[in-house]
Each structure stands twice: as structure tokens, then as C-alpha cells.
């Protein structure tokens, strides 16, 4: 164990954090979009003219993946990996960055999956009556709130952790 962790420096931890944020957000969104998309495909089979609306709804649970990606991007940016001159981070800084990624990653994971379920239900509303679109979107956005909050905290942490 000590040998393994002895190899890990601050930068590696920070990059692991970036990876977690992107992976968790990506899992959340891909599952969410799957639920929504599967329900949407059913709607489109019956009513092909609603494809536009279905597509917009399907995109809604996709934002969690983007938030995760953004946190990952911020880490790459702030640690200097992107510019090709990575900073020397202490172990403490590394852990700080690692934990800063978690609010976004975990919130996005669960929010993405659950938003997908709500959106799938929203697809049924749209199938019945296209004018329900706005309501379906708002219901879906309620679940997204918590991913937004998670992203916000992660982003603020990354902005304010001194490197």
C-alpha cells in the first residue's frame, strides 16, 4: 500500500479527480439519455412528426455529462496539463483537488439517471399532447437542479483552491 501511494503525487490525485468527475457525470448522463431515448423512440415510431420535440427532451439528461467534463477541463487547465507545463502539486493540494471534483461527479451521476427517468415519463406527456412539451421540460429540469448545484460547488472549489 505504502509503495503504491508513495508513487502518487499531487498531480496524479488531481487528474484522478478529473477522471472521476468526467466518468461519473458521463455514466449518469448516458444512462439518463438512454432512458429518455428509449421512451422517445417509442413516441417517434407512432408520431414521427414529434421527432424535434423528442430530441430536445432527450438532450436534457445530457447536461450532467457536460458538467463532469467541465470540471475535468478546469482541472486540466488549472494544473497546467493543457498548456504542457504541469505544475508541481503537493499531496495536500492533490487531495484538495480530488475532493473538489466529487460534488459534481456524484451529484451528476444520480441526477443524470433520475432525470432520465423523469424525462422518459415526460415523453409520454408529449406523446399524448405536443403542447405538454414545456411542462415536461420543467419537470425534468427540477432533477437537474442538484447536478447544477454540485457543479457550482465543484467549480467554486476549483477556483479558490490555491495552487
Amino acid at each position, binding site marked *: 500500500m505504502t509503495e503504491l501511494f508513495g508513487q502518487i503525487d499531487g498531480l496524479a490525485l488531481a487528474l484522478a479527480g478529473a477522471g472521476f468527475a468526467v466518468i461519473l457525470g458521463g455514466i449518469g448522463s448516458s444512462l439518463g439519455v438512454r432512458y429518455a431515448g428509449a421512451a422517445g423512440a417509442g413516441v417517434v415510431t407512432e408520431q414521427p412528426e414529434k421527432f424535434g420535440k423528442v430530441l430536445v427532451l432527450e438532450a436534457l439528461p445530457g447536461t450532467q455529462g457536460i458538467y463532469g467534463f*467541465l470540471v475535468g477541463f478546469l482541472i486540466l487547465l488549472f494544473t497546467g496539463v493543457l498548456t504542457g507545463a504541469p505544475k508541481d502539486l503537493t499531496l495536500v493540494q492533490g487531495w484538495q483537488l480530488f475532493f473538489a471534483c466529487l460534488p459534481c461527479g456524484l451529484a451528476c451521476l444520480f441526477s443524470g439517471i433520475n432525470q432520465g427517468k423523469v424525462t422518459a415519463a415526460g415523453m409520454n406527456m408529449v406523446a399524448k399532447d405536443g403542447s405538454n412539451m414545456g411542462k415536461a*421540460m*420543467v419537470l425534468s*429540469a427540477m432533477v*437537474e437542479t442538484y447536478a447544477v*448545484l454540485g457543479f*457550482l460547488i465543484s*467549480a467554486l472549489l476549483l*477556483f479558490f483552491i490555491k495552487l
Partner: protein
Amino acid sequence: MALSQIKKIRVVAISKHKDKILEKIQNFSDLEVISLDTDINSALTKKSKEKLENLELLRANIEFSIKTLSKFEKKKLISNPISISLEDAKEQSENQDFSQIIKICQNYEDKTQKAKNDIENISQKISNLAPYKDLSIKLEEQNGTDNYLIKVGEIKNIVFEDLIKKTNELSKIVSIEKVSADTTNTYFSIIFEKNIDREILQILTNLKFIDASLPKTKGSLKELIHSLKSDLKEAKRSIKNLDKNIQKEIKELNKLKIAYDYYSWEIEKLSSLKKIEKTDFAFCITAWVPKKSLDALEKEINDITNEYTMEILQLKKDEVPPVAIKNSKFMEPFEAVTKTFGLPLHNEIDPTPFLAGFFIVFFALCLTDAGYGILMIIAFSLALKFIKFDKGFKTLISVLLYGGIVTMIIGTLFGGWFGLTPEQVPSFFTYIDASGEKMFLLQKINPITNPLNVLILAFALGFIQITLGTYIKFFHTYLKGYRKNALLDTLPWSLFLTGLGFYILSITGAITSSASIIGKYWAIAGLISLVLTQGREKKSIIGKLLSGILSLYGLVGYLSDVLSYSRLLALGLATAIIGMAVNTIAILMKDIPFIGYLLMAIVFIGGHIFNLTINALGAFIHSGRLQFVEFFGKFMEGGGREFKPLSKKTKYIYLTK
């Protein structure tokens, strides 16, 4: 600027004018006929019912034909509806016999369906026979002779050796011919003497033999497959021919579309007869009409006849009028936002004018990129100029256009230009501010280095909107006559929140300290008044005091509402950072030899369009949510029934005057 006042009226007129008056009302588009309690005396006579059914059948057939022909319509990026006047639409539709084209379309669909079924059947057959195509036995020989039997079929590869061994043990005069094999199955024929058929069949059954059930015709299988293939080709060709023939009829499509809309109007008009009462000589319409349209309606009917009466009815107890909202031309697009939530109840207030400013500012804060704002302005003003949208869509585009304008302004103040940093642009676009930071021209705040300021701004806007919500509730209930409730339930909260606002402002040093004392005492006074008023329903004095104090818990609700506005910062940051990521990736592309700059341009343009689309969608939804959940909840319940006048709705055409 508010809810339209809707009156219940009754019009009674002589029967012979019925059709003309109905037509007038439909063109007038501002009257909703109320259903009858019973339809015993309904004006929908047997004759008109028949007519209605015929029209519905005709419309269904027309719709069917449109669907068939639309498959061959040339797809255009922007498809405008057909412009036509009311009179022309009527004349064209009534003077044309559509039975011919309907028949052609039905014929086409029947025949293609049949051909498609054929293709499917034949392909299925071919794929079943394909493994046996090298079979040497002719099809007429498959039943064997008097002494020998033949079986053709498949078994699993792994048991094929078994089969040979077992049959050889049984008799030497068994011939097994392997025809073909794939990864799992072996296809073969077996010839054996009739006297051992039981044993052979037993072996085959044990090894899970599946009989090929070859068709009982003549010739070799190869010939059969060949003829099937040519049948397939024939069926495909016939579909192609059918497609080619139907394409000649595409010129009828526009006429069909016009007729579809025209007959939809007629159907709606005839259906409304069901809600109209008739006697031997007269008929009677009970309806909802906005108060301001009453005079105009009277004038319209007067044009036809003066043999009528029109009176305003008193509402029955528990009778709820439908709701229509009316706003100035500038505010009208924002009705789309209100309607997304649903209309207010008939005795509530129209939130549209109050939400408009907030909605658009929140939308802009979620984007905060002047470049995107400019793109939106260009795209949506071009769209409004060149495309004829129906009304609902037009309001949405107008809202987005306003959104673009405000986004440009706020984006400029926040220094958002396609996610670029000041270092990346020529120096005449930038300046050095007092603290030595490089900024874009006109930029006042940098949300990336100073996110807290934006967060505070978001909270402040939320606080203002929520406090405004409580004031709206206060004034509305007060003016409706529930003065006690307004003064004792709502006003203390409004005053307390206002005082609190001033107090917070003075703590942060935004206003002078003398004002801070006022704010402080004001907030305390509000707090005391809350404790004194909120428990007044309770009987005992202790109960009053306790629920008064408990009501302060409501503050948590207000607090969480305000915190919800932090999403404005998060979404704004998301736009900025995605923009930055796009630029970073685009710059990485530059170093690829030969096509580097091309790739860079593609990534830059594609990435920013993606960012704009996904975030404009998010901005719209989240800005809307803040109105619906945080703002509306303070003063309205919603759920009013929409006023749906008898009118001429269009699906395909755009009516010119």
C-alpha cells in the same frame, strides 16, 4: 395588461340566419360556445350530422393522401406554409373533386404494401433455401422411389459425424450427401432403404434433425432459387414504377393541404352546432366572450340581420369562466412563458408583465456571452423576417430574439466573447482596468476570476423577485377586497423582506450607515409583526404566540428559494467554460499539418454552435423554472381553463387578408 374580463352571453336569432351567423362568429375568432346541458334540442339535426360525418370521412381521406404524397415532396430547409386568402381557399376546396386523387393514393398504398409483403416472403424463402442450393436431387424426386426414401434437412455440426457413424452401423446402403455447412449447422440429404426407415428416423430425431420442407415442385433447387430471385426483382421494379407514377400527382399536394384546412374549419363549425339550442323558428347560442369584444361582435351580427337579441348573463354559482390573457405587443411574446406553466385562475393576476424582465435577464445570465447574443439576434431576426411561423412559434422566436439582445448587453458587461480570453484578441479590443487586470472593452466584471460577485448578483436578483412576488400577492388580495388577509397575512412578510434587504445592503456597505439603522429596525419591526399576525387563527393566546413564532420557519422557505438562483452563476460558468474548452481544442488542431487551420475552423464553429444550442435550451428551461417554482408560488396557483374561441385554425396554410 392582464386577464381579459370574460362575459357569458346569450344570442338568440331567427333560424334562417344560423349558417351565416356561425360563419361570422368563426371568422370573428373571439367567442367560445358553451356546451348544452342536454343535447335534446341541439341544432345538430340528423341531416347536419350526416353532413358532418361525410366531411370527417373526406378529411381523413385527404389526410391519408397528404401523408402518401408528402413522402415524395422535396425536402426544403425552410418550408413556408401556403399563403392563400380565405375566399380562395373556400373556392378551391369546394370546386374540386378529390375522389380521383384519393383513389390514386389508396391504390398506390395497397399495391406497394402488397409488393412489400411479396418481397419479404420471397426473401424469406430464398434465405431458407440458400443452404441447399447445390443439392443434386431434383425436387420432384424428393419423395424417393418404391424402395428408397430421401430426407433433406439440417443438424448441428457437432453431431454430423455421429450421424454417419450410426447410420453406417445400421446399414451399408445409406448414402449421406453433405450439401453445405455454416458455423453451426450442416445441411445434407440422406437416402436409405424403405425397410429401415423407422430406425433411421429414430436416429435423426435423436440428433435433432430439422426437415428442410422443400417446396413440392419440379426442377432443381438452383432453378427454383433463380426464379424466386427474378420474382424479387420484379416486385422491386413494381414498387419503383408505382413510386414513379405517384410522383406525377405531387402537384395535387398543395390543393390537398388547403382542402384539409378548409374542411377542418367546416368540421369545427358544424360540430359547434351540437352546443347550440334550437326551436322551430329560432336558435340560441350561449357563449363566453371577452368584454371588450362585445360591441364588435354585435356589429358583426348586425351586418347580417337585426332579427336577434344579445344579452349578458349572470354567472351561476360555481360557474368558472375560462381565462385569456392580453398583453401589450411588446410583452406578448412572454405569454409563451406563462402558458408553459399554464394560465392563472380567473380570479388571479396575469404574471406575464412581472416575469418578462426577470425571465430575459436570467436567460442572459445563463449565457453571458455577447458573441452568442449577436448570433442569436442575427439568426432570429432573419427567421422572423423570412419565415412565416404560426403564432405560437412566432412568440417563442420573439422571446429568443429579446433574449439575444439582453445576452449581448450582459455578455459585454461580463466580457464573454465566444469564450475567448482578453489575451487571445487584438489589443484594441481590450483595456487594463484599475486593478491591473486585462479586460475586454466595456467589460465591468470577470465572472471567471470573480465568481462570487456574480453569485451575489444572482442572489440579489432572486431576493428582489421573491420580495416582489409577496408585494404582488399583497396588492392583488387587497384590491380584490380581502383586505384583512392582505394586511395581516401577506404585508408583514413583504415588509420584513424589504427591511431585511436594506439591512443586508447596509452590512455589505452598499448604502450609508444611517440607512442601516432604518433597515435594522424595519426588519425587526417586520419580524415582530410576523409573530403577532401569523398565529391569529389560533384560539388561545399561547397558541397564537406559538404559531406566530413557528411561522418564522417560513423564512427557511424564502432562503432556499433565493439559494436556488445560484443556478444562474453555474449555468453562466458552464457556457463560459465550454466556450473555453472549444477554443483550447480548436487551437490544438492548428498544429496538424496541411489541414490544421481547416480543422481548427470546423471545431471552432461546430463547438460554439453546440455550446450555444445546448446552453440556450438550458437557459430557457432554468430561467422558466425560476419563474414557475420560485416566483409564481408566491402569488398564484394557476390552473385556469384556457379560453378557446371558435376560429379557423390552420395546419398547412397561412391566411392572407
